[in-house]
């Protein structure tokens, strides 16, 4: 047994105070296995020690909430005895080290979170951040991540129906890979990770345990520096085939009346699953490592308890049901072993070859980790970011050029190259495929569908984390509403830098406040989530990226709406007000090479009225299409409505009112609470009346017509044409930009 030295403690990322707390809890010095178990459970990744005090502020309840944060995933009622179970997870650090396997195992992890709850996963979405594509290294990471997600998700037969990708060099050394998963469960058949019932058997099943991923949780709680390469042996390889068997076996076990509780072995593997299940039930667990299925000889208790080998589960069965459980696992060719039992003493006791190798109160490991109220304070550079003198930026001269440049910037360009690699149709539920504001998936056996979107504009969050977070919530909800769905729940993945820095902590705290205010106004509860800190390399931190995954309910599949123009002759209406909102815009970045200014103005009441109005218009059958204005403003929204239909394009002739605004703000400004809709001429008046009744400004700005996109601006009776392009040219730039950047060496 190695002596517990200061070095050893530091290597385990534990502070002196934290170590002393461990000694207090145990009433003695820990042995090496115990030290390892504490270190993973008390890591930032598992214990949320810097974030917990703030996360508590988020609204997590509501009439539809069946399960809020604290379990493997959240669950929200969708009536008919069903609920949707969803969550989002990050796999940022592993994906930087090994893009394919990092992303693949990220998908594996989030899928397990969903099916451990008794839900069959029916949709995945991926939200990605990379450095710009001109660098071969960034391209390599992006390609690897996309094929990793494809490799795992496709094999599992869970469709990846949407997502988001943004490119910015700030993510070059810290790419973000966030994956969202949603499943469907019977409301009265939700399973939880609890070790209830003293004497009940604890059963291990899935893959064998190997030496892979030891210390993954501590790695995810550490910044990168140039020695990170040496941390490489912690890379895990995913096995989606075994996961598919695990999924089917779990759902079969749950169909029958065999289980008390179940939890997947994610970060911190056997340690976290056992102590968390015990702690939730107020019980203990006794484990015998001698019978744990292993891949390699000679593994120590330390290695077995800390291994993060993938595709493994722990279940607590009803006493006497062991054999039935084992039979189901064997049917699906999985390794399985009864590895312990539930005890009354609240202790996680680990045995190996008849000897006690660890003995720790389960609750101390799982719940009594350190909590920090880290200091926070806005950085000195914050004002420099927001103070932007627009007089120094010349107004636009070449509207056509700017529009084309925006359409082919990879952040806005079509993501077809990505989503064609994902099976987005398996399970035959996908009503709206990738390419519209949100993905829509019908629920078989009902007349309902759910819409899903992932959103976050991290540049807004950098410029003003409070506003940025509010804007992200608003945009996510708006994307759902434009698809005909009422928002019912939210999950988040909060990607930030090092929380021990007061400026980063300030970003985090402000973002939480923003999310809280917006969610309360929209009455959308946050039911699950994940925090990823330490996204920082050599002191350079990512933009604050509080990624949101929002879920909406479409109570009648007939209300489903898409963003593309449908028929020649339809009127185009712009809902909402255009202001001079250039700060933080994609236009400023792409055309003016500036990431500065204040993010767009957002009034939550105005936004809510707009969303209620759009939803009501859709349900009234009054719309042909609806598309929200986001990156690139109304000009890009119009272009997308012309070219994003699958298999056809439409032209449009539009005149926008300029008022006292700059031309670039009219075309490309990112004013919030705006939606471009198209309507049949016969329904124009009804739509305008409807909008007025909601207090939402509505302007008929043009018509779906021809095969060009023509945008003019009107000012005091004079009209000037700023954009006039064949739709085929817009399509070509937008649809193939991705391939072009990839092939450009």
């Amino acid at each position: 047994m190695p002596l517990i030295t200061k070095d050893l403690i530091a290597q385990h990322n534990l502070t002196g105070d934290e170590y002393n707390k461990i000694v207090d809890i145990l009433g003695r010095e820990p042995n090496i296995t115990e030290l390892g178990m504490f270190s993973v459970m008390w890591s930032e990744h598992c214990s949320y020690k810097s974030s917990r005090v703030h996360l508590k502020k988020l609204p997590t309840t509501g009439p539809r909430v069946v399960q809020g944060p604290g379990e493997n995933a959240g669950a929200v009622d969708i009536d008919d005895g069903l609920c949707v179970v969803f969550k989002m997870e990050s796999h940022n650090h592993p994906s930087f080290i090994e893009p394919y396997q990092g992303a693949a195992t990220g998908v594996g992890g989030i899928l397990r979170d969903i099916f451990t709850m008794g839900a069959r996963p029916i949709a995945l979405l991926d939200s990605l951040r990379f450095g710009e594509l001109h660098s071969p290294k960034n391209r390599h990471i992006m390609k690897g991540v996309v094929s990793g997600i494809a490799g795992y998700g496709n094999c599992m037969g869970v469709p990846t129906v949407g997502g988001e990708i943004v490119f910015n060099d700030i993510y070059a050394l810290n790419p973000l890979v966030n994956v969202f998963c949603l499943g469907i469960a019977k409301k009265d058949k939700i399973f939880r990770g609890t070790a209830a019932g003293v004497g009940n058997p604890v059963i291990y099943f899935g893959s064998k345990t190997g030496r892979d991923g030891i210390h993954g949780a501590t790695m995810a709680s550490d910044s990168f520096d140039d020695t990170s390469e040496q941390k490489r042996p912690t890379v895990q390889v995913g096995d989606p085939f075994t996961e598919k068997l695990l999924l089917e076996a779990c759902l079969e076990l749950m169909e029958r009346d065999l289980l008390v509780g179940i939890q997947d072995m994610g970060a911190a593997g056997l340690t976290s699953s056992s102590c968390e299940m015990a702690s939730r039930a107020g019980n203990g667990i006794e484990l015998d490592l001698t019978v744990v299925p292993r891949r390699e000889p000679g593994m120590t208790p330390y290695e077995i308890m800390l291994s993060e080998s993938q595709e493994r589960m722990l279940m607590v069965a009803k006493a006497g049901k062991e054999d039935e459980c084992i039979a189901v696992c064997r049917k699906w060719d999985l390794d399985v072993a009864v590895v312990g039992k539930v005890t009354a003493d609240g202790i996680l006791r680990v045995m190996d070859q008849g000897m006690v190798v660890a003995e720790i109160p389960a609750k101390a490991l799982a719940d009594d980790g350190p909590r920090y109220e880290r200091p926070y304070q806005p950085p000195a550079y914050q004002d420099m970011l927001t103070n932007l003198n627009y007089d120094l930026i010349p107004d636009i001269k070449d509207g056509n050029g700017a529009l084309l440049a925006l359409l082919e910037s990879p952040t806005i360009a079509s993501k077809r190259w990505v989503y064609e690699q994902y099976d987005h149709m398996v399970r035959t539920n996908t009503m709206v495929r990738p390419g519209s504001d949100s993905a829509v998936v019908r629920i078989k056996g009902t007349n309902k569908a759910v819409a899903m979107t992932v959103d976050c504009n991290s540049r807004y969050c950098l410029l003003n984390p409070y506003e940025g977070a509010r804007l992200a919530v608003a945009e996510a909800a708006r994307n759902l509403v434009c698809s005909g769905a009422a928002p019912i729940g939210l999950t988040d993945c909060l990607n930030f830098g090092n929380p021990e820095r007061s400026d980063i902590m300030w970003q985090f705290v402000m973002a939480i406040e923003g999310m809280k205010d917006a969610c309360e106004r929209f009455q959308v509860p946050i039911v699950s989530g994940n925090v990823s800190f330490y996204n920082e390399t050599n002191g350079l931190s990512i933009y604050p990226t509080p990624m949101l995954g929002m879920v909406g309910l479409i109570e009648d599949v007939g209300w489903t709406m898409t963003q593309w123009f449908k028929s020649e002759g339809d009127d185009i209406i712009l809902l909402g007000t255009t202001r001079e909102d250039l700060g933080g815009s994609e236009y400023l970045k792409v055309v003016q090479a500036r990431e500065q200014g204040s993010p767009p103005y957002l009034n939550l009441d105005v936004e809510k009225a707009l969303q209620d109005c759009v939803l009501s218009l859709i349900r009234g059958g009054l719309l042909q299409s609806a598309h929200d204005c986001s990156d690139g403003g109304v000009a890009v929204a119009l272009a997308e409505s012309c070219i994003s239909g699958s298999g056809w394009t439409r032209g449009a002739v539009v005149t926008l009112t300029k008022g006292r605004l700059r031309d670039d703000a009219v075309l490309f400004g990112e004013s919030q609470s705006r939606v471009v809709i198209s309507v049949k001429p016969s329904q124009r008046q009804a739509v305008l009346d409807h909008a007025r009744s909601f207090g939402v400004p509505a302007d008929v700005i043009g018509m779906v017509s021809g095969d060009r996109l023509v945008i003019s601006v009107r000012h005091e009776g004079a009209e000037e044409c700023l954009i006039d392009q064949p739709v085929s040219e817009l399509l070509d730039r937008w649809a193939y930009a991705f391939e072009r950047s990839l092939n450009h060496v």
Partner: protein
Amino acid sequence: MNIGVVVFPGSNCDHDCAHVVKDVLGHDVTMVWHKEASLAGLDAIILPGGFSYGDYLRTGAIARFSPVMQAVKQFAGDGGLVFGICNGFQILLEAGLLLGAMLRNRSLHFVCKDVYVRIENAATPFTCVLKPGQILRIPIAHADGSYYTDPVTLAGLQANAQVTFRYCTADGKAVPEANPNGSLDNIAGICNAEGNVLGMMPHPERCVEALLGREDGRAIFQSMIMSLERKKLAAAR
């Protein structure tokens, strides 16, 4: 009718096929576990898409040794209808029930999108409600769909009208631009000499409901049901 859908470890379009047969077309479905040795009582067999055994060696290579495949061979030999979709097609090739083999897509990527296919033979039990030359828009979703066979076998397939579907453009031209994976001769699906075993890479089960966009795939399942009904009628006479 009672249609069997075989479930291999790693099948993932099994539910989708069952949904079409049962919920859309109103027939009975029996899920057949891959260790099953008998197919008694079933009118036709579907081998669904997915990644049997993870497709870790070659697509379909391990699944073909599943006990059920002996029964499928017998069933096909007795003239029963066997329909392999995507991974099911790959398994039929590995099992030798259809001729040829699958290579990686030319692009080396998994590809999921709608493609057009042209009906080359409308006289099979799986295409009998369609017209020769008719064009369907059907999704594909695979990484190994580049059909290959040697020139002699290809000539034989062509001569016997065993090439059932070819990838084509929206207006029906089987040109290289319309070939999504590098398949020899734009082949999207073939049948055996007797016509009772069919394999195709596109997924007709993904387009049988207007709610999901298009219904082009429905005709293939309807053909299969109609052929079975005719056979039953003939047997009853």
